[in-house]
């Protein structure tokens, strides 16, 4: 390794909370660490003199609380072990980039962005630690996929003179020419090509193309018949990207049984088309399924866009990097919507395994192939969205966490961004964009490295030991913030470009070919693409997924203005080619054509797959247990389940107040209870709002995916309506995270879910505006005893809702406001405990394994629509003092949340609840029947409210009390729950108290 000239170590002269917090955490995990100190190190390889390097050190140190050493180890006395964590070569080091800019600002010089500055952190540990323990501790501190660690004992450190000046400079000595790949090879060779990738000269393979025989045959035929040659590696890799499941959604597009046009067109898109037709002039859609995000009308002048992405596979390998890249990546979908919308809110949703589960999983039989623990994955993912969202200045109000052991092999990480854009810019529609022939292809943002190569094809495969580590990237929110502001707040309104899109999966290969559909063709010169380091092959430059880049089409007339503006905003921009109308995509590298394809073939040549499915809903054993005589204990246990407990620790670490747009917050009431919908006011001068919520019931998939999807839609809608949105102003987004999607049974489940999406979206007239799927969330590996395991996530459908609130003054929160208010329930409760949180809890308590049941909730859209209309009217009339949609955990959870939110008591009578054929108290309390809302009403509004309810099932089921007790009377009149709200509240907050 190369050595840096200077090593600056910054250490604290006062107690450093970072060390203290880490020490406490390690103690909790069972390591006898008595003290921990951290230093931040800067390795600088720039020819500076002594006084100059002193100046640099002074710019890096906080003189009141810190001090520094230069080329001299900090060397605290008598520590036990020291661990240094730095990055591997080529991994984004944001702090190093800022340090370089500090040096450039200070001395007015230019330094090589990838070779001059590197950072590392050193942790000194005291305590009775053995070497095994310090190795385990180091794994808490770093991820071997992107970072390196060096562990030294005290003696070694002293002997060594500290941690050394080695720097991770990238050195590549590879051939950087394009190659021709012969497709005239035997079938097994062709299969291997598709599955494992193009062969390197040494016989190893580059990594999956994820092309099946059907696709390979189509490619072969095209080259044989049309081009009359073999493809280059650049072409083949590019086709594989474009045709990947990730980009083309081949399963949703495939003929499935008798559905010839595929389930996406047949169910999802068709639902939207029909709804738009039926709504006529009340259609809210502005742009659906065609752009980076979907757009609905906000008001006469603005459009609001929304997109929810998944970033599951990368997050399994590097939770922090995967999550930050996910959130910052989906921000670009907003920036790339129309001519560029301004991100105004982020969403998140995480499906994890139990973070307290310590049994390891292994990728292979090698004990060193241990997967990250559920706790590490959870911590890393949460932190990734924290840094990505907070640093970008985009509020992150809406989100959820959901736990199931089947997410142990792959977590699901949903990230979404909402954008706001004026309908017209310079008199023209801002939503429709068109790259024109002759426009310059301009790339802005970061430089290109080997990051994320094969990301798209990788996520189309199940996670096994062959997964490439290059699939991991680290986001840099500040680089992105700079161009986001420059584009959305300046260049856009100056009309400096014709079209824009995100560089996401597939990098330039996908963004340029996508935009070329608008113009008709392109020519790109790869040598003009700026690289982080030399040695990239042309196919790597073309496909790299290095983050924080967008591609724009800029006409000659405004090119100079555009480039100048970017320069003045500290944004790098490069012209890399031109759009044409030739119908072909042509890529040169150093004067040689390395890619020359008919664009129609690239986009439309993918043969449609034909898939078949089988499906019969599963029937589960009926577990008999008595209706508990006293439910108090279960009532408390149910508010502290992983799936129902407070996740305040996430809500408070995500800035949901930035931009000043927060109206209904993630934490509601005095008791700061997680609500199920949030509202923002994206234009501070307007009283209109935007509501966000979601529905997700993976446990229902174990019974019937049709009703799982129906309930998810109903919940996403109901949550939004209960908070203040009109049903007519709501739209939906779908994210299918499926598993083992070549398995006919899984496909059958998928088809049923998609069919429900059509039925229920149409019934509620809530159009789908955008979606994304991820079809192979499976893990193949070994358990703690090295037995082979195949873990599939439960079929998971996230339905997100977004809607326009006509006046934010109609909004309401879930907390009870005043003792003496009447508590009402709207809607009917049925015996629908199948897949419920209560059955899972009872099963785990009684048998160690969750019960599933069979009576999954059904959805009565006609009745529910009536209920939702009543809520709309009552909220508008200001009659409702608190409002909460009843979802996971049933009535019990809704009462608990409203009471804990208001820190007030409640007295409830179960006899009063409108219901069908329920004879058990627990069923009444915990059934997850859809279509129900719990509200509280001031006594003076009682008559007026009841009058509004006359056509729907409703009942006054009790009263808010100020004695701070929740008391519930059973069907036979006996008191079966009596719990202090304070006790309940501390149980609710206890579950994640160590996070």
């Amino acid at each position: 390794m190369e050595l840096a000239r200077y090593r600056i170590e910054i250490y604290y002269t006062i107690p450093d909370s970072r060390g203290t917090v880490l020490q406490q955490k390690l103690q909790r995990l069972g390591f006898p660490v008595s003290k921990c100190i951290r230093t931040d190190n800067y390795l600088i390889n720039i020819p500076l003199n002594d006084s100059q390097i002193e100046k640099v050190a002074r710019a890096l140190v906080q003189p009141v609380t810190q001090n520094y050493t230069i080329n001299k180890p900090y060397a605290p006395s008598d520590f036990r072990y020291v661990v240094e964590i730095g990055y591997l070569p080529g991994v984004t080091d944001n702090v190093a980039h800022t340090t370089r800019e500090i040096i450039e600002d200070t001395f007015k010089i230019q330094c090589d962005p990838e070779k001059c500055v590197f950072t590392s952190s050193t942790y000194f540990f005291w305590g009775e630690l053995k070497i095994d323990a310090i190795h385990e501790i180091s794994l808490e501190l770093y991820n071997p996929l992107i970072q390196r660690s060096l562990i030294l004992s005290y003696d070694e450190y002293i002997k060594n003179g500290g941690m050394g000046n080695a720097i991770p400079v990238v050195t590549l000595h590879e051939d950087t020419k394009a190659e021709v790949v012969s497709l005239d090879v035997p079938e097994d060779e062709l299969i291997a090509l598709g599955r494992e990738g193009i062969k390197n000269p040494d016989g190893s393979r580059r990594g999956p193309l994820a092309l099946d025989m059907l696709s390979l045959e189509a490619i072969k035929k095209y080259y044989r018949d049309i081009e009359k040659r073999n493809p280059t590696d650049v072409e083949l890799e590019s086709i594989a990207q474009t045709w990947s499941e990730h980009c083309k959604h081949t399963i949703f597009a495939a003929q499935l049984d008798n559905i010839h046009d595929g389930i996406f067109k047949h169910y999802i898109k068709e639902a939207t088309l029909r709804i738009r037709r039926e709504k006529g002039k009340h259609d809210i859609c502005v742009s659906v399924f065609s752009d980076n995000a979907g757009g609905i009308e906000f008001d006469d002048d603005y459009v609001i866009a929304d997109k929810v992405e998944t970033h599951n596979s990368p997050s399994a390998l590097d939770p922090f990097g995967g999550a930050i890249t996910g959130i910052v990546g989906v921000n670009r979908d907003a920036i790339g919507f129309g001519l560029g919308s301004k991100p105004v809110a982020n969403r998140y949703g995480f499906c994890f395994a139990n973070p307290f589960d310590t049994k390891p999983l292994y990728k292979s039989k090698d004990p060193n192939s241990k997967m990250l623990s559920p706790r590490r994955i959870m911590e890393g993912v949460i932190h990734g969205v924290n840094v990505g969202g907070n640093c970008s200045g985009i509020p992150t109000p809406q989100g959820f966490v959901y736990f199931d052991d089947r997410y142990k092999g792959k977590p699901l990480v949903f990230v979404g961004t909402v954008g706001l854009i004026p309908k017209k810019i310079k008199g023209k529609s801002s939503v429709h964009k068109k790259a024109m022939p002759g426009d310059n292809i301009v790339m802005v943002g970061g430089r290109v490295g080997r990051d994320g190569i094969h990301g798209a094809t990788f996520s189309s495969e199940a996670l096994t030991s062959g997964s490439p580590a290059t699939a991991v990237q680290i986001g840099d929110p500040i680089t992105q913030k700079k161009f986001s502001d420059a584009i959305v707040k300046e260049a856009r309104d100056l009309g400096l470009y014709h079209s824009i899109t995100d560089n996401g999966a597939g990098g330039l290969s996908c963004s340029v070919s996508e935009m070329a559909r608008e113009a008709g063709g392109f020519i790109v010169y790869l040598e003009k693409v700026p690289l982080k380091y030399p040695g990239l092959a042309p196919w790597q430059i073309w496909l790299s997924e290095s983050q924080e880049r967008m591609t724009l089409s800029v006409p000659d007339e405004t090119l100079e203005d555009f480039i100048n503006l970017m320069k003045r905003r500290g944004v790098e921009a490069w012209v890399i080619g031109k759009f044409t109308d030739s119908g072909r995509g042509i890529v040169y590298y150093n004067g040689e054509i390395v890619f020359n394809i008919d664009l129609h073939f690239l986009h439309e040549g993918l043969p449609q797959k034909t898939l078949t499915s089988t499906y019969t809903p599963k029937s589960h054993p009926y577990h008999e247990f008595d209706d508990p005589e006293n439910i108090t204990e279960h009532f408390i246990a149910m508010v502290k389940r992983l799936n129902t407990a407070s996740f305040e620790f996430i809500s408070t670490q995500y800035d949901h107040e930035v931009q000043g747009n927060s109206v209904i917050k993630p934490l509601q009431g005095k008791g700061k209870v997680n609500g199920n919908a949030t509202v923002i006011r994206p234009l501070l001068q307007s009283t209109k709002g935007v509501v966000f919520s979601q529905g997700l019931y993976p446990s229902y998939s174990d019974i019937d995916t049709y009703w799982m999807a129906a309930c998810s839609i109903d919940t996403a809608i109901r949550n939004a309506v209960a908070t203040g949105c009109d049903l007519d102003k709501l739209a939906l987004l779908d994210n299918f995270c499926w598993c083992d999607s070549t398995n006919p049974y899984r496909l059958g489940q998928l088809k049923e879910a998609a069919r429900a999406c059509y039925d229920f979206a149409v019934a509620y007239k809530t159009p789908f505006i955008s979606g994304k799927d991820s079809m192979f969330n499976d893990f193949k590996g070994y358990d703690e005893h090295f037995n082979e395991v195949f873990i599939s996530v439960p079929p998971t459908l996230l339905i997100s809702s977004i809607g326009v609130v006509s006046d934010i003054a109609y909004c309401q929160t879930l907390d009870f406001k005043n003792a003496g208010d009447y508590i009402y329930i709207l809607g009917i409760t049925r015996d629908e405990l199948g897949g419920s949180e209560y059955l899972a809890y009872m099963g785990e308590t009684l048998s160690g394994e969750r019960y599933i049941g069979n009576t999954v909730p059904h959805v009565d859209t006609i009745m529910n629509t009536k209920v939702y209309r009543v809520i709309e009217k009552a909220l508008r009339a200001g009659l409702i003092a608190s409002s909460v949609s009843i979802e996971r955990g049933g009535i019990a959870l809704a009462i608990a949340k409203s009471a804990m939110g208001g820190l007030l008591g409640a007295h409830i009578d179960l006899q009063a609840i409108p219901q069908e054929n329920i004879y058990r108290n627990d069923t009444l309390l915990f059934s997850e029947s859809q279509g129900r809302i719990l509200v509280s009403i001031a006594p003076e509004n009682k008559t007026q409210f009841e009058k509004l309810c006359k056509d729907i099932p409703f009942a006054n089921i009790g009263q808010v009390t100020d004695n701070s007790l929740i008391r519930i009377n059973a069907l036979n009149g006996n008191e079966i729950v009596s719990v202090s709200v304070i006790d309940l509240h501390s149980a609710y907050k206890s579950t994640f108290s160590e996070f």
Partner: protein
Amino acid sequence: MAKPKALILTGYGINCDEETRFSFEIAGAHATIIHINDIIENKSLLNSYQIFAFPGGFSYGDDTGSGKALANKIKYNLYEEMMSFINRDTLMIGICNGFQVMVNLGIVPALTQPIGNVEVSLEHNTTFRFQCRWVDLRINLHSNCVFTKGIDTLHIPVAHGEGNFVASQHIIDTLSKNNQIVMHYIKPDGTLAQGQFPYNPNGSMMDIAAICDTTGRIMGMMPHPERHIYFMQRDDWTYLRELSKRQQKEIPQYGEGLQIFKNAVEYYK
């Protein structure tokens, strides 16, 4: 009299510029967002402004320590102009990351002349975690700070990872004596938070949330007044609305943070 002109700085990861501009506008100023590079290019720009705001955000991603890199950029590109701006009868406010930048430039508390020494620090929160939550603040009524005139308490949010105010005992004593400590974190009952989380969200010494310079014209604060301009931005507005309705009181339109910006405008009347 003409509206005072407020310059709201932006660039390199600053992100509360728009709501800060909006707040000044609602308060009656004429506020403009300007990129730091545009000021460096045209330094005389500063001459036509009376108010300068360092908004919140994540300048340079907080890399190398919050506020340091942006302070460094100003120090090596705009320092003299900044000093001559301060030496006029101008106002300057730094919020959150803006406060961190001001501290690293030595603009606050600026106890010694010439100013520019780093005298205090805003360290990692003692939880070592970003905290976004609403806090209660008590204003030092004896302070000469222009921005807090006539305010006794404030309910506004914090959102930061590095807001833990640290200084030597000597500096703290001097700040106290000079009444340069402008805001303290308090409990809802009005007593000092005394370091107790979450009332004091970051572990600040003496529950310090904001300080000003000796003239009272320059203030740095961790909490965000620009996020509480309207009543319906507060965390408990649905509760307070319900209360007002039942007591048949009027539901307010504006929020508590607005007065900070009004005071700045008022100064020029």
